[in-house]
Each structure stands twice: as C-alpha cells, then as structure tokens.
C-alpha cells in the first residue's frame, strides 16, 4: 500500500483508528520520530538561503557521496532564529535530534565527521530536541529550555523548522487535516463561525477586527457565490512572519483556509502572495497540488458535497495592497486603491460578492481553535486579546528572528529575555512596533503588555507584528524621515490628505536635516514654518484619510515627537544630530596637531573643500563641505574630527 492510499484509508477515513499499533508506528516513521538511517535537516527558508543554505546542502550531499554514507536530507523552514542560519539538525537512529548554528558550507565536513563518530563539536551546537524515545546527548541543552524558546508559546509556528514543509504526509502524521475533515463531517458552518467567535480570535494583520464576527456577517449574507481571500501581501519592511509560516508549514495555512471557506460558504479561495516571495510562492503551489492529489480540494471533497478551489495570485508589489479593499481591486485587475467602507467586503467584496479577507496568521490559528475547542484558545492571552502573536524581531537586537508569545507578554520580556537585548553592548533607545505605520516606544514604556487596546492607549499599534529594536546609534528624526519616505512612495494617491500630506511631512523633515551652512533666509523661514505646522498636519492626515495606510501614516512621526522631543529640538535649533546619522548636519574640522599632511583626504574630497600642502596640516572650507564624511573615513591618523 503506498503512502497516499495508507493515509487516506487508515488515517483520514471516517472510521479510522489511528491509535492502532501498526498505524501509529508508520505515522511516527513519517514524522521522523523513529528513524532507521541518519537524517540531516537543513534550514532552507529564505533567511537560510540568504545565509548560504544552498551551499551547505551541496556540501552535505558531496560529503555523503564521498564517504559512501546513506542518510536522508530534509529541507525544513525557519525555526525562528534567523541569525543562527544556516541551521543544520542531525538525527542519528536512537539519538535525539541535535541542532547546530551558522553551518556554512566549509563547516559541513568537520561537523559531520564529528557527529558520525558520536562526538559533539562544542562550538556550533545550540540545543537538542526533547523526545522520550530518544537517548539524549550529554551536556547539550534542550531546545525548549533555551531562553529564546522558554518564554514562547508556539501555536502558529509550532512545526516551523521542525516538520518537512514539502510533505503533506508529514503534516497529516502530525494530526493535520483531521480537524478539517471533522469540521465538514460533523459541524455545520454556523457552528464553526460561532466556535471562532467564542475563541475571541482577532485579525492579526493590523486591524484587529473580531474574526468570528466577520465570518458570521459573510455567512449570513445571501449570495450565489462567496469568496475567501488569504492576505499574504506582506510588504512591510521588517516583517516576515507570513513568509515564515508559508515556508515552514504551508499546510497549516491551507487547512485554515479550507475550514474558513467551509464556514463562510465560499467555494473559491484566493491566496494573494507578494511576487518577491518566490520561494513561498513555489512551496504554496506545490502544497496546493498535493491537496488536489489527496482530494482535499476540488468537487465533493471526501464525499461531503463541498467544493473548494484554491487559486494563487501573485501580488505585483504595492504596500497598500495589504489593505483588504485595495487587495480586492488588485485581484480584479485594477489599481490597488482602497474602496470606501461600508459596504464592507464581507457583504460586497470581490466581484461584488461577499468576501472574507483574512491574514495568514489569523488563518493559521484556525486549525488549533477547531481542534482543541475555543476554551483552550481563550485561556491564552488577556481579556481583550486572546491567543498568541508572532513578532518579527530585527534591527539591533542580539537575536533576530521570529517569536510567538501569548498576548499580554511585556515588550521588555520579548526584547531582553527572548531576543537577548541589544547587540554589541549598546544602550537600548526605542522599539518600533507595527511596521512603517506603527509607533516607536521608549525604554520607559517597555512594561506595556502586547495587545490591541493596551498598545492603542499609548498611541501604538500591534500592526502586523514587526518589532524593530533601535540602539543609541539610531537617530529618531532619521527614522521618522525614513518611514515617511516609504509611506509617501507607497501612498496610492487616491485621497488627498495621504497623498499630499505624507509628502509634505517628508519635505519638512528633509528641511530640518539639511546642511546648516549656506541656508538662505527664506529657507530658514520655510524650515521653521514647517515645524510649527508639523503636528497639526499629522492630525489632519490621521483624521481625514480614507484607509488604514493614511490614518496610521503619521504614527511614526507623532510617536517620535512625543517620546524624543529633545532630539527633534536639537536638530531644529542646535542643528546637531547626536547619533551622527543625519550626514548633512555633520561639521568636520581637522586637528592640526594630528594631521601629517598625507593628502589622502584632499585627494578623495568630492567637492575640493580641503586645502593644504603635502606634509603640512590641511584645512576644511566649511562653506564648500557637503558633510559626506569621506575624509573622516579615509584619515588614518584620526585627525578629521566631528564638531
């Protein structure tokens, strides 16, 4: 009996009993709980590939061929610690699976030499998996006891980096799709909607609308055709949780989609993936084809009379398409511009039919809720926010990667306990939560618990869950300028406050970071006029924009002005940037005692602002200098200094 037939007849059939000894043995072999030959797992998510996982894979293959060894190679997704990539796990028969970090291709040979002799190379090991059937390695910590994992609660990321994302059999062996079949066999669609409603799940994409309520609205709307759209248009800089879920556990998402489609009565589901996510796209495509093979999609699924067709849509790259109505327009082949709401998409959406748009993470929570009941989910989190949230930690954090914590966890704990604090021993300055239209929070606000209202009250949003850690070398004015530049480029141009306002704010911020020398009187006047109107302009944009992009666009600026006002004032009045990031504000001088007259800076200066004779101290003509800092970089004698 082949694998597919076995799974369908013994595991997925209506009267299957997976507790039978021979069935559970085969399942544990599929899950790699018991292995008969060594297995090498290579973290091959996008973050792994960037770090060189492909070369590592080649090296492993070459090693096995040279030494004439038989081993299975499994390419897994990202386990969450992106800064440890490429991660290589090795599981010898009878021994626990053990993980190694930063295994670039030249390290493969010594690593495999050691491990096949049952020795653990101390340098790169970071943990082993806990499994009662396996003998543990000595002096190797358990993965779940590492600080990075200890404080996490993984529902969405449970199998990311652990199971084989290319294999539907692996997912089924871990209990997958049995919940979906339970739903279509035993539950009415009303029942599923109410279960999701009771669980208190709220949208994870940024809006935070109650998912169950949304479903009930769509379910109760009468129509000949309904649609479900999975929003994987993740294009915030610094957020990559959706991609990690798709690459690490695509079937979890697809099961969520299948259940959601049944609950609202949709027979067509679309997954809108950014075209840049080429690997995620390929993996989803392969996963959808597997579903077709097993009969989870198509007509009359498992004799239930239900139809489902899943279509992948390549998003052509626009930040605003993360907004649900803009996304619908984009699928219809129009410009991705938002529509006024109401009518809400749940009543009138794609092609004028009721449409549910849910984020990847929201849908990935659905199988858990239906499998364990709403109560289990309800117990996690706080009164206003249930369940867990995945955060993508990047910037100047010690460990960059993905963490999933229960709602209500303190921001401080995420940054310092899980991500290990700020790297290079620098001081923490701020954390930007919620992507480019989120807000920054200073050190004094780190005791806040993560959640919807708890952050909202402080002017911050949970957004899609990007968390960017900033250290003392970051300039808050520069960050605000960066975000405004991003938002003014991505503004779709439909409504005036957002289109014009974001551009004006960016201009004003450009003005205050412009070079102080050679400014005309009129320019100074414009600069001050702009600053005086900045806060008011931000309020207007917030109140009058059409969609979420515009309404939240001033957030990074307003929060930076609120918490780091003194830094703004320094830029405006003293014309100084304490972090030294705003390049144009830097004024240089040459220390005559240290300058040897080597002419290195004189030759490199792009505007000939440095004068001097060889072997004589040089001077900088301030009016000519553009503050590029090349002289500062080339000087070997530290004679060029910042004023």
């Amino acid at each position: 009996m082949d694998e597919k037939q076995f799974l369908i007849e013994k595991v997925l059939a209506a009267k299957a009993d997976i507790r039978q000894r021979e069935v559970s043995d085969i399942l544990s072999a599929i899950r790699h709980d018991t292995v008969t030959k060594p297995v090498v797992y290579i973290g091959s998510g996008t973050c792994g590939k960037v770090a060189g996982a492909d070369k590592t894979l080649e090296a492993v293959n070459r090693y096995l061929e040279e030494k004439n060894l038989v081993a299975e190679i499994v390419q897994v997704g990202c386990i969450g610690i992106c800064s440890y990539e490429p991660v290589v796990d090795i599981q010898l028969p009878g021994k626990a699976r053990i993980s190694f970090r930063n295994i670039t291709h030249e390290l493969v040979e010594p690593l495999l030499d050691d491990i096949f002799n049952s020795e653990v190379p101390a340098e790169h090991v970071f943990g082993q998996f806990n499994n009662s059937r396996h003998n543990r390695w000595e002096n190797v910590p358990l993965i779940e006891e590492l600080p990075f994992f200890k404080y996490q609660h993984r529902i969405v990321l449970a199998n990311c980096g652990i199971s084989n994302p290319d294999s539907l059999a692996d997912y089924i062996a871990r209990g997958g799709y049995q919940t979906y079949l339970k739903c279509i066999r035993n539950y009415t669609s009303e029942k599923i909607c109410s279960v999701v409603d009771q669980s208190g799940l709220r949208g994870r994409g940024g809006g935070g609308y109650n998912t169950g309520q949304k479903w009930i609205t769509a379910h109760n709307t009468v129509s000949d055709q309904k649609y479900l759209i999975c929003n994987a248009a993740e294009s915030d800089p610094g957020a990559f949780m959706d991609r990690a879920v798709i690459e690490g556990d695509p079937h979890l998402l697809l099961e969520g989609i299948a259940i959601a489609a049944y609950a609202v009565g949709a027979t067509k589901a679309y997954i809108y993936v950014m075209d840049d996510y080429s690997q995620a796209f390929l993996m989803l495509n392969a996963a959808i084809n597997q579903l077709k093979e097993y009969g989870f999609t198509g007509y009359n699924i498992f004799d239930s009379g239900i139809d489902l067709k899943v279509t992948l849509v390549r998003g052509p790259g626009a930040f605003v398409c993360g907004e649900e109505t803009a996304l619908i327009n984009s699928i219809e082949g129009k410009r991705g511009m938002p529509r006024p709401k109401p009518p809400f998409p749940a009543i009138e959406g794609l092609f004028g039919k009721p449409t549910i748009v849910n984020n990847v993470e929201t849908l990935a929570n659905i199988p858990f809720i239906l499998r364990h009941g709403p109560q289990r989910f309800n117990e996690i989190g706080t009164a206003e926010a249930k369940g867990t949230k995945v955060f993508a930690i990047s910037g100047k954090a010690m460990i960059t990667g993905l963490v999933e914590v229960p709602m209500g966890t303190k921001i401080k704990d995420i940054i310092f306990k899980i991500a290990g604090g700020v790297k290079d021993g620098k001081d923490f300055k701020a954390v930007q939560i919620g992507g480019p239209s989120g807000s920054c929070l200073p050190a004094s606000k780190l005791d806040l618990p993560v959640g919807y209202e708890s952050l909202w009250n402080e002017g911050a949003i949970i957004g899609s869950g990007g968390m960017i850690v900033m250290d003392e070398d970051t300039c808050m004015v520069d960050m605000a300028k960066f975000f405004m530049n991003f938002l003014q480029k991505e503004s779709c141009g439909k409504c005036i406050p957002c289109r014009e306002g974001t551009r004006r704010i960016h201009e004003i911020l450009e003005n205050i970071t412009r070079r102080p020398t050679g400014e005309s009187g009129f320019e100074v006047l414009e600069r001050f006029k702009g600053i005086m109107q900045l806060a008011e302009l931000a309020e207007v944009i917030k109140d009058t924009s059409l969609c979420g992009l515009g309404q939240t666009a001033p957030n990074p600026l307003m929060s930076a002005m609120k918490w780091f006002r003194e830094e703004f004032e320094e830029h405006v009045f003293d014309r100084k940037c304490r972090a030294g990031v705003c390049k144009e504000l830097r004024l240089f001088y040459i220390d005559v005692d240290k300058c040897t007259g080597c002419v290195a800076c004189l030759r490199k200066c792009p505007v000939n602002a440095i004068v001097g004779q060889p072997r004589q101290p040089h001077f900088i003509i301030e009016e000519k200098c553009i503050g590029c800092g090349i002289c500062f970089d080339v000087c070997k004698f530290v004679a060029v200094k910042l004023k």
Partner: protein
Amino acid sequence: MQATLDEIIGRYKAGSRESLLPLLQDIQIEYGYLNEEAILKVGQHIKLPSSKVYGIATFYDQFRFVQKGKFHFKVCRGTSCHMHGSSGILREVERALNIKEGQTTRDGRFSLEAVSCMGACGSAPVVNVNGEFRTAISIPDIARIIDLYRSTI
C-alpha cells in the same frame, strides 16, 4: 526558446480584466520588462485602453519599462537595512555604476533597483545581484563586488 508575445497573450481569455496583472507578469518574466508593443497588444486583448494598462502597470512596483542589465543589483532599503546604513550603500552603488536607482547602464551591463524589504533583516545590509545574496556588506565592499562582476564579462 523564448515564447512570443502572442503566445503569452493567447494563454489568457480575451476581455477578462482579472487576467490583466498575471498577463503583464508573465510578459515581464519572459522579457524582463514591458515594452510599448506589449502594452498595446495587452490593451487590445483585454479590451482596455492602452493608457489604462500603462497606468495600472506603473502603479505597481514590480513592473519595469526598461531592459534589465546583465547584472541586476537590488539594494535592500528595509528598516533593518536602513539602520545598518543601506542609504550609504545605495548612494555608493549609484556613484560606482554612475546610474540612479531604476536605471540601466548605457552598455546594458548593470542595472540598479532599490527594494523595500527582502526579508533578510538578520544579515543587514543586504545586496542581491542576480539572485545571489551578499550580506552584511559595508561601503568599501561595493567596489570589490562590482569589479568582480565587471571582470566576468
């Protein structure tokens, strides 16, 4: 064998608006950019004015209207990369190649694009050349990287 424009257009149903974007994407995959002929033909096929097709294509970041260079540089301008100094990296690449972002050098060897995030935030700043990632680079590395590609032509 490169598929002709008519072949690609023939894969999609005439007059259906929702196939506009996939169609443009397919053409771009095949040719690397959208030329005037493609826009005109797609307009006829979808039954939309070509001005509208062009308008929609320019709305999205993905579509290009000039041929890519033999070596296509993508400089990440995501938040994490920005904090690690990617604005300087972009400026330096612009200076070294003597083109602005979105342009191709006159000899057609190099082109440059600034992208909003490549999702490799852990190894910032990141530059991607023809799909090959170069991580944690600094300004002095750029001249070396460009020379490496120059010498392979």
